[in-house]
């Protein structure tokens, strides 16, 4: 495993440089993971992009950096403690020097100088990309090809400038490497058919494959990508992305579309989600399918818009006034995000209910290598639920849209279906949809709606795990934390501790008995989550699952856990528990 990082000012092309390296590494057969630290501002402010590459799947960032490309002196100051025996590539222009105590080899290149020579100072990042490729031993033509593809629709002059910058950086570094005492050692690649993708990408692809054709949204970090990407895809398939005036309109438009039979979605983050609470209740009550993506970020209020957190969970499940059924699912990897995204549309139509996909900023934004065959759009299952055509409606005077049934699911009709007219209202109603205040009807309707979604665990395994059979300890989490737990597991197993990773896929309705059964024999369980109040632990308590074997590890400073943190906490915990015994 090797980690490479580039840092500089926001707006300087740090992202695209990282992107280029990552795609190149992926094409060369490495598994990659990308990570970025950025601020809620457009230009200026320090930002960095980190790539981890290995010949096995990687699912989290690392603490250590092997190669640091520092476009500004600040990059060195901010990151030098991560470099232990690594290499720092810096720009001669600012006469770089290493802070005291830094154990690193400094390679100083005339990045600014070269950019000026090529005639475009903004190309400094491309020169750094070339230099990085050379240092990593990537063949020039592989990175050049990717860059060519990436800029294929740009003006010829830009393409040419990029090419020249890339070459210049590459050559300059080659001259250096000849002189260096040692070079970074790369694992041999593990070739395969892989793509590089973020969770947000996977969400879009899942929605696209599932037949979602209406996306009504309002921009918000880190969900905006979803709207922007679907804006690209939808014209290819006849769908429409609608930028609404706010999130109240976004969700309500999607509910309207779902009522009329379209597969429709919206995507937002915390502040928008809070605004959607009332309308989600409307979907629960009218039993209208709708899919909502919440890419969680650090809250409350505006909070830290560019920092990751998993702190909306209770709000997603319990945040609306009154009690209405909501399905909340949480993917734990990019592949699962694709799976959950298409499944969400099936679940929404099957259960006629709002389905919320809870991701988090880290899962939503960071790139990963994914097997191409895991993202198999054309062969996903499609379940449209029980939809009656005119002939199925029967003879009764008016259609019983909310008929009581054994499983609580009442077949619905779509507008346009003769004799299928009904009233869908957020007011309590009888079987035909008309307003009813009858106490008996009320109780039955409440029971029906909750019973209905109870069926989900049969359709969809609510928990996944690895290594559980003989594990001493299980790391339990959701979302991006699962990737971290997987990396922590590798560390813990290396130190001899049999470790499992368990992740919840369905948060509401909560899989209580499944959780209890699965972990019945596990001696210790660490619930790892990125929030302050231990929301997953709270859910486990409400579900009567949490007992003295469970321990909580939380973090809420905006920075993801490192696998090392989780491993260390787990080891200390076990040591302490043994002492107690």
């Amino acid at each position, binding site marked *: 495993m090797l980690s490479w990082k580039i840092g500089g000012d926001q707006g300087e092309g740090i992202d695209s440089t990282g992107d280029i390296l990552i*795609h190149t590494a992926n094409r060369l057969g490495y598994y990659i993971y990308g990570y970025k630290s950025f601020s809620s501002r457009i230009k200026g402010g320090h930002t960095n992009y980190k790539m981890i590459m290995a010949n096995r799947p990687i699912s989290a960032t690392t603490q250590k950096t092997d190669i640091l490309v520092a476009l500004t002196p600040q990059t060195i100051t901010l990151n030098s403690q991560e470099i232990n025996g690594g290499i720092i590539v810096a720009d001669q222009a600012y006469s770089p020097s290493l802070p005291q105590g830094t154990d690193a080899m400094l390679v100083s290149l005339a990045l600014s100088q070269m950019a000026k020579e090529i005639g475009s100072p903004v190309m400094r990042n491309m020169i750094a990309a070339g230099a990085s490729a050379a240092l990593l031993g990537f063949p020039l033509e592989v990175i050049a090809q990717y860059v060519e593809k990436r800029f294929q629709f740009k003006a010829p002059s830009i393409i040419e400038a990029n090419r020249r910058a890339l070459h210049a950086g590459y050559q300059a570094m080659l001259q250096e490497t000849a002189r260096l005492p040692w070079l970074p050692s790369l694992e041999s690649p593990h070739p395969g058919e892989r*793509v*590089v*993708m973020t969770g947000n*990408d996977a969400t879009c692809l899942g929605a*696209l*494959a*599932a*037949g979602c*054709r*209406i996306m*009504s949204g309002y921009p918000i970090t880190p969900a905006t990508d979803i709207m922007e990407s679907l804006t690209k895809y*939808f*014209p*290819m*398939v*006849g*769908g*429409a992305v*609608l930028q*609404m*005036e*706010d999130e*109240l*309109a*976004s969700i*309500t*438009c999607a*509910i*309207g*579309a*779902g*009522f*009329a*039979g*379209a*597969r*429709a979605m919206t995507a937002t983050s915390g502040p928008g989600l809070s605004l959607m609470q009332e309308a989600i*209740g*409307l979907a629960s009550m009218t039993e209208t399918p709708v899919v909502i993506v919440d890419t969680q970020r650090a809250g409350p209020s505006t909070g830290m818009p560019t920092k990751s957190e998993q702190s909306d969970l209770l709000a997603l499940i319990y945040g609306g006034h009154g009690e209405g059924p909501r399905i909340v699912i949480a993917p734990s990897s990019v592949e699962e995000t694709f799976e959950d995204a298409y499944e969400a549309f099936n679940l929404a139509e099957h259960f006629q209910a709002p389905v919320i996909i809870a991701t988090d900023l880290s899962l939503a934004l960071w790139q990963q290598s994914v097997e*191409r065959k895991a*993202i198999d*759009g*054309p*062969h*996903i299952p*499609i379940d*449209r639920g029980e939809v009656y055509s005119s002939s199925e409606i029967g003879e009764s005077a*008016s259609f019983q849209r909310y008929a009581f049934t054994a499983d609580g699911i009442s077949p619905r009709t*779509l*507008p*346009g279906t003769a004799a*299928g*007219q009904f*009233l*869908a*209202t*957020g007011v309590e109603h009888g079987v035909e949809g*008309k*307003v009813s205040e009858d106490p008996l009807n009320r109780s039955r309707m409440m029971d029906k709606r909750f019973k209905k979604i109870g069926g989900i665990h049969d359709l969809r395994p609510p928990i996944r795990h690895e290594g559980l059979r003989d594990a001493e300890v299980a790391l339990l989490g959701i979302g991006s934390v699962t990737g971290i737990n997987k990396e922590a597991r590798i560390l813990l197993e290396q130190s001899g501790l049999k470790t499992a990773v368990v992740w919840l896929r369905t948060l509401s309705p909560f899989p209580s008995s499944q959780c209890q059964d699965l972990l019945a024999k596990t001696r210790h369980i660490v619930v790892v989550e990125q929030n302050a109040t231990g929301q997953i632990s709270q859910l486990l308590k409400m579900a009567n699952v949490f007992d003295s074997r469970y321990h909580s590890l939380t973090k809420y400073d905006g920075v993801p856990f490192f696998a090392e943190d989780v491993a260390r906490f787990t080891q200390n915990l076990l040591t302490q528990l043994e002492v107690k015994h």
Partner: protein
Amino acid sequence: MATLSDFKTAEKSWWCPGCGDFGVLAALEKALVQVNANPATTAIIAGIGCSGKIGNYINSYNLHVTHGRTLPAAMGIKLANRTLTVLAVGGDGDAYAIGMGHFMHALRRNINITYLVMDNHVYGLTKGQTSPTSDMGFHTKTSPDGSIDEPVHPLMLAVAGGATFVAQGFSSWQPQLSRLIVQGITHPGFSLINVISPCVTYNRVNTYEWYKKTLVNLDEDPSYKSSQRAQVLARLEESDELVTGLIFQKPSRPYEELITGFSSGPLSEQVGPINQDLWDHILDQFE
């Protein structure tokens, strides 16, 4: 062909005897028959208020949403299935207080839906508070000394906000009202029909009698040109909007026809496995 009775439901009305909303319902039913609409292809999206109960009394696909959100819901429905006749219906509070933002944006977005606002200048269902269209000086439970808020002028706002069709009807003037609804439905874009629909319980000022005395029917004024925006604005200002008829209309192409690549068939029928070649092409972008 559908008849009036096809649009009726067995539900007994919860409106007060004499409520203006009865007239709106009647005119709407007549208009639907006249445009040859079909209950099965008609979608009515109602807001919260006395007015919003209309969905209980009309036989069509009805969605009764949260307070103030009829327009985004109607937009979603229309885009999902353009073959439907889509109407949004709600009160003056629903439309111009909590729904004001959506209203202004629906105007500019110009989707082919019709919006009936049942305007009684008061909050009916919550038992008589000032509404955005309440007159200055109007006494209610929340304005015992008379309202001090400049009222919203919905027609003027609609025109200024980019509307392509604006009309005002009166619940008592059935033939004109149903004709205006017909015109609104057939207008290829967003149509606002503000309907004066007196609340006999909580508004003892803006009564049927008062309106009959004060309203001027612009449809009968040959000098009035509903296509000339400046003249329209001037007339609205000088009449304090106490007019009925087709207020403003301009040529319009509905939003849904302007969206790049957007399918014109019902989207429900578009759900099926995605094309393999297209998929491969898309995935290639991630390599």
